[in-house]
């Protein structure tokens, strides 16, 4: 009997040992395939941003207006960064990603307040001397960059709406940044996105309403109404459709002839090109890990004249082709 008891006790011990070994085995596997690498990158990220934050705070206050704006804007961004950290800790990866994209974009806008040591003056280029094919290619690239920018803007506004539901109102943050003097996402940008994507309208307005004053909300509504009345998107689409029905491949870009004519606003064009060049230079399309998405954009306001001319051009072509 004594022996049986002894064997039973030993077997129980072995059983417990097996259970324990299995628990340890799965714990190791879990740590290997779980958050592992990302967790390390998160630690590096928080360490780096904490360091940068301390460095910003230790900077002596500067007398220049730009420095004051930058310092204030960074304090505004700190709140957003804290929210991103909190989202990550709560395992809300998608919200963290969206918030970081917003921070990235805002930091790029804040950076525009700092003038670069070297600038590239493109106004010295004589556009009429460029080979025809190269010229068309540059125009095409500009157009596609603009489309990219538009896509990103829609996605950003969508993200801001989703983030608002999670606890931070980025419409308000953007408004604060604009009031500080940072040229960033504003009422007009939001209005443009909403007027071209009506399904977003309700959500965006609800989110914006919670973050801005009644007066500002009224202003936002007015801007949207104006954008809708103006109907840029709709008219451009109609022109394109009319042209397409006649077998023309007309789009919103000006033709080479328009650009080479005396009417063409070369100064505005050069300014827009210069901005594009600066964006390419400040972006990191050439970095070894190829974070190219932040690359380039093409200033819309600088191209308004050309766009209007192009629309008129296309409309008259379409009308000529189909007078009825």
């Amino acid at each position: 009997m004594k022996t049986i008891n002894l064997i039973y006790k030993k077997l129980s011990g072995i059983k417990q040992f097996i259970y324990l070994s299995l628990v340890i085995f799965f714990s190791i596997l879990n740590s290997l395939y779980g958050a592992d690498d990302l967790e390390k990158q998160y630690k590096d990220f928080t360490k780096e941003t904490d360091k940068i934050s301390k460095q910003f705070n230790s900077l002596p206050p500067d007398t220049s207006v730009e420095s004051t704006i930058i310092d204030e804007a960074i304090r505004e961004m700190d709140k957003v960064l804290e929210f991103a950290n909190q989202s990550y800790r709560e395992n809300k990866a998608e919200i963290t990603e969206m918030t970081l994209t917003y921070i990235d974009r805002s930091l790029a806008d804040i950076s525009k307040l700092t003038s670069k040591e070297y600038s590239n003056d493109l106004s010295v280029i004589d556009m009429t001397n460029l080979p025809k094919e190269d010229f068309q290619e540059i125009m095409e690239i500009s157009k596609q960059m603009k489309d990219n920018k538009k896509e990103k803007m829609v996605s950003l506004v969508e993200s801001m709406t989703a983030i608002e539901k999670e606890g931070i109102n980025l419409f308000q943050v953007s408004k604060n940044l604009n009031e500080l003097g940072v040229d960033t996402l504003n009422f007009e940008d939001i209005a443009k996105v909403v007027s071209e994507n009506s399904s977003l309208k309700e959500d965006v307005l609800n989110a914006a309403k919670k973050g801005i004053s009644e007066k500002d909300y009224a202003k936002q509504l007015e801007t949207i109404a104006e954008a809708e009345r103006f109907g840029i998107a709709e008219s451009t689409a109609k022109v394109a459709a009319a042209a397409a029905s006649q077998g023309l491949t007309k789009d919103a870009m000006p033709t080479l002839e328009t650009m080479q004519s005396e009417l063409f606003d070369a100064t505005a064009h050069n300014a827009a090109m210069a901005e594009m060049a600066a964006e390419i230079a400040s972006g990191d399309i050439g970095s070894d890990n190829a974070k190219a998405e932040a690359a380039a954009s093409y200033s819309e306001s600088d191209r308004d004249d050309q766009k209007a001319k192009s629309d008129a051009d296309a409309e008259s072509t379409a009308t000529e082709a189909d007078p009825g």
Partner: protein
Amino acid sequence: MFKIKKFLAISTLVFFATSYVSSFSAIKESLTVKQEVKMLGVFSEPKVYPVGMIESFGKGCKKFFCRAQKATKKMSIVFNRGSEYHQRHPGAQLYALAQFELYYLQQLKKNEKKIQKFIAAWPDKKHGKTIVSLIKLNKSREKMRKALGMDLNTSAEEAMKRYWIMGDFLEKGEIKKQKINRDIKKREKLLAKYKKAVSIFNSALKDKEYENLYDEIQKK
């Protein structure tokens, strides 16, 4: 007492086992792996190069191998340059992107047989490591192209042409130096560091969704 211990042990075991399995729940199906490999494209030697690019190879360098080697060397030098260099040479980055296209083609050529063997052996993981590194390279290529409004359907010749034309265009401008306030300079540097930190971690988050796919391809 023993029953409670047993229950606790089993519960812990089930918890860890479940979370271990769930870490693989997002694994894409085999079809996705094949699709990703298909997206790598097939090597085809470029028939046309931008004139400026040919000049950069030098007179004696006419074969694809020589051109790709030279392009890769030049590309890596430019990619490692600091922001001040890029401000002074606005076209350099775009020329480097054209050179990257050749580097990618060279990688495709070099690993052509491995890709074929991988496809033939799948789901056996033959040359998985090479395939994963090619997929990562291809994703970079896609991002770079997207910045100038192109995608993976754009031919290498067309992509090189576009990068080069834009590079030439930017190089035609006049570089002007201006004096910058020291405090602004400090803030500029900090902003750049801040942006880089955010961008790196955001990319890591985005890449996480591919990690399971990479594991599926290379882990035995």
